[in-house]
Structure formats: structure tokens, C-alpha cells
């Protein structure tokens, strides 16, 4: 009797110990956290953006959508890197070309830290891979909640070459590690 009870207890103990090890997280596949970009978008694209008034000057990388349908943004560890959304028109072509940059990252100001200080008439310069140098002029600046992001106004068709510069702004939600709003600058191609 005693022997049977001991055997049951031993089996239970071993089972429990087995459960403990089973609850260990499965070994993650060795997926690197980053890999070098050696085959970027090769089509016609913008290569740099400069905004003299706020001292912003960056090369432009091309980004697309992530698998969840949100836009891919430059690494938070490279807050001074701006990006062009490659499913939007190339700046200078008819439509709203979308350029985005961090307001901050890695506890440092980002390339668009002062984007909200832009005002109508301010200049934005964009260079393209075909050698064209374009000048855009700010039309207006808006601050919009992310949860009611005005998709039509920002991404809808336009009759002229336009530019949208987008960054974060508003209150910082510490729980979500995210700003509540987006700052959107609307600019038109000069002499268009």
C-alpha cells in the first residue's frame, strides 16, 4: 500500500516536473533581428528630402507594407532616416507622394522633430533617382488622431503632383509607447 502510494507520488512528481519543462517557451527559430538591405526597390524613386526651415536633410529609403497592412517605418534606432512609401506616386508625378519620418526615436529627436513648425509657403526639396530636383511648397499642416486617420485626404487621388510629409505628434501614450496623433504636411509642387 505504502509502496503503491509512493509510486503514485513519484509518478505525479515526475509528471509535474515534465509539465514545468514543457511550459518553457519553444526555442525560437534563429531568425535574425535584422539583415542588410542589398536588393532595395530599383524603380524610379526619390532619393533625398530637405526642409531648410527645420534643418531636416535625409536620404530616402523605399518602404512598403508590413504583413498587417501597416506601413513599414525606418528603424527606431535610426530616427534621422526618412522614407518614401513606394506604393505612393514618385514625387513630381501626379498624386500624393508620401514621405514619412520619425519625430523621435532611441530617446533622440528624429528627422521630423520640428515638422509641425512648418507653415504655408515653406519649402521642401526632393531629389529623384533620375536626377530631377523638385521644389514643393507647403500648403497646410494638420494634426490628426491616429485612430481616425483621414485616409481619403492623405492618400486619395489629386489632380496635381503633391507631397505628404507625415510624422507623429500630440500626446505620448506611455502604455502604448506611441503618440496619439499624426502630423501631416500637405505640399504642392512649385510651378506645377
Amino acid at each position, binding site marked *: 500500500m*505504502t509502496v503503491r*502510494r*509512493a*509510486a503514485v*507520488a*513519484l509518478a*505525479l*512528481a515526475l509528471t509535474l*516536473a515534465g509539465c*514545468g519543462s514543457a511550459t518553457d517557451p519553444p526555442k525560437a*527559430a534563429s*531568425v535574425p533581428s*535584422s539583415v*542588410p*538591405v*542589398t536588393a*532595395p526597390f*530599383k524603380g524610379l524613386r526619390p532619393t533625398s528630402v530637405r526642409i531648410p526651415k527645420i534643418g531636416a536633410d535625409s536620404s530616402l529609403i*523605399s518602404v*512598403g*507594407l508590413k*504583413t*498587417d*497592412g501597416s*506601413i*513599414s517605418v525606418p*528603424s527606431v534606432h535610426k530616427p534621422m532616416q526618412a522614407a518614401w*512609401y513606394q*506604393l505612393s*506616386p514618385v514625387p513630381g508625378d501626379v498624386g*500624393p507622394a*508620401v514621405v514619412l519620418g*520619425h519625430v*523621435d*526615436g*532611441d530617446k533622440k529627436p*528624429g528627422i*521630423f522633430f520640428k515638422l509641425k513648425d512648418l507653415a504655408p509657403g515653406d519649402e521642401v526639396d526632393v531629389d529623384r533617382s533620375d536626377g530631377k530636383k523638385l521644389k514643393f511648397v507647403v500648403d497646410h499642416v494638420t*494634426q*490628426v*488622431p*491616429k485612430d481616425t*486617420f483621414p485616409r*481619403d485626404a492623405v*492618400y486619395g*487621388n*489629386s*489632380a496635381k503632383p503633391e507631397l505628404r510629409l507625415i*510624422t*507623429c505628434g*500630440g*500626446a505620448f501614450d*506611455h*502604455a*502604448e*509607447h*506611441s503618440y496619439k*496623433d*499624426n502630423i501631416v504636411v*500637405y505640399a504642392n509642387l512649385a510651378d506645377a
Partner: protein
Amino acid sequence: MGRTLSRVAGIVSAGALITFAAAPAALADDETPTSETTTATSETTTTTAPTTTETTASSVPVTTTGTTSAPATTDVTSTTTPGTTTPEDTTTATSEPPKDDYQDNTGAGFVGVGGEGSLTINCAAGAPGNVATQYLSVTGGPDQDGADGRIWHYSVRVDQLPPGTTTGKFSWTCDGIDGEGVVVFEQAPPPDSSTAPVATATASTAPVTTAVASTAPVTTATPASAAPGNAAPKAQVKVAPKGGIETGFGGTAP
């Protein structure tokens, strides 16, 4: 003998209990305050297999000149309280960026109302192979995402889309392992009553897929006759990203 066994069992039991008691604390240490990511699965009903498509390196940029009515843009005054944080806040742990939600060998496709779009495939091992699509032609790629080299993009255009189709399948291999994803076809809003859209797709045996992944960009209901690719107007932004844009994590913005 019986007593000895009992003692051994007791010691092992105690060890197991200690292990259990320690486990929550150990797990808690690993927890990060980021929101959980959810992976949605979607069922699709198809009767045809994806067609294998050879991809070409040269992309075919399409510049649209359609001048549909431009949406009215209105100046929006700030609707939220202006920044209430100070730079000092950045010294706290809460300024850490969200956890990386990357999942290798997963993919999704997005096609806008103009019938153009993109396939996104996560493959850290390198460019995916054997990309096969349903209802789509691959017109460009593979290109690495400039912000994350593990992400690969292919440009696509609707080839033949049966009316009312909202999703399709695509597949690939990543480092020799098969992968499969869902393409969501964003639908055009209902047409004006004054204009009648023209539906040209006529495949009678084509599959109609109805399930939509919950993580996909929002699509709107539409009549079958407004299927993209033929009657829909060109979209200058081929696919509108989902939601706002996350471009700040430090809490330092003025």
C-alpha cells in the same frame, strides 16, 4: 523500502512544487509591456490552384494620370491635447519601442481599388522563391523593404478577378519551406448612381473567396460589379496603409 521510496517521492514532489512556484516569476520577467500580437487565420474557399508566375527583376512603374475628383482636404485643428510630455520623460523605461512583431515565413497581399498592389513576404533567409499567385500578375520585385531587409515586396496587378472576389491566395518558399498567404482586394466604394460600372470578368467557374483576415486593411462592402482591375478608377496611392503611422517612440516631441 516502502518508507524510503516514499521519502524519495516526497523530495521530488517538493522539487516540482518549487519549480512551479518559480515559474510565474521567471515568466513575468520575460514579459514586456507591449500589446499582444494576434495572428488571424482565415479560411478561403477556392477551386483553382494558384498559377506560378515568373518574376522579373524590372519593375513596371505605372504613373496614373487619372484626375478623379480630389478629396476635399480641410484644415484640422488639433483635436487632442498638445504634447503633455517633457523630454525628461525619456529617461523612463516607457520610452522603449514596441516589441518587434515580425514573424518569419508569413506573408500578406494587398491590392487597391485600382487593381494594383503588393505582396509582402517575411523571409529573413533571403528572397522568396516559387512565388505563385491567384488572379494576379507579378510586375516587379522582389525588393527588400528599405527599413527591414527581412521583408520582401513584389508589385502585382490584377489579371482576372471574378466579380465579387475579395480575397485570393498566394504561395512561396522561404529557405526551402513552403509558405502561404492571403491577398485582400480592396473594393471601390459604391459608384455614383449616375454612372454604371462595367463588369468584364466572366469566369463562371472561378472561386469566390469570402473570408478576410482580421489583420488586413479595412475593406468596404461593394457590389460585385465594382470588382477592381477593370472598371475601378486608378488609385494614385496603390494601397492605402492601415491606420496611422508609427513614427515616434521616445516621448520627446515638443
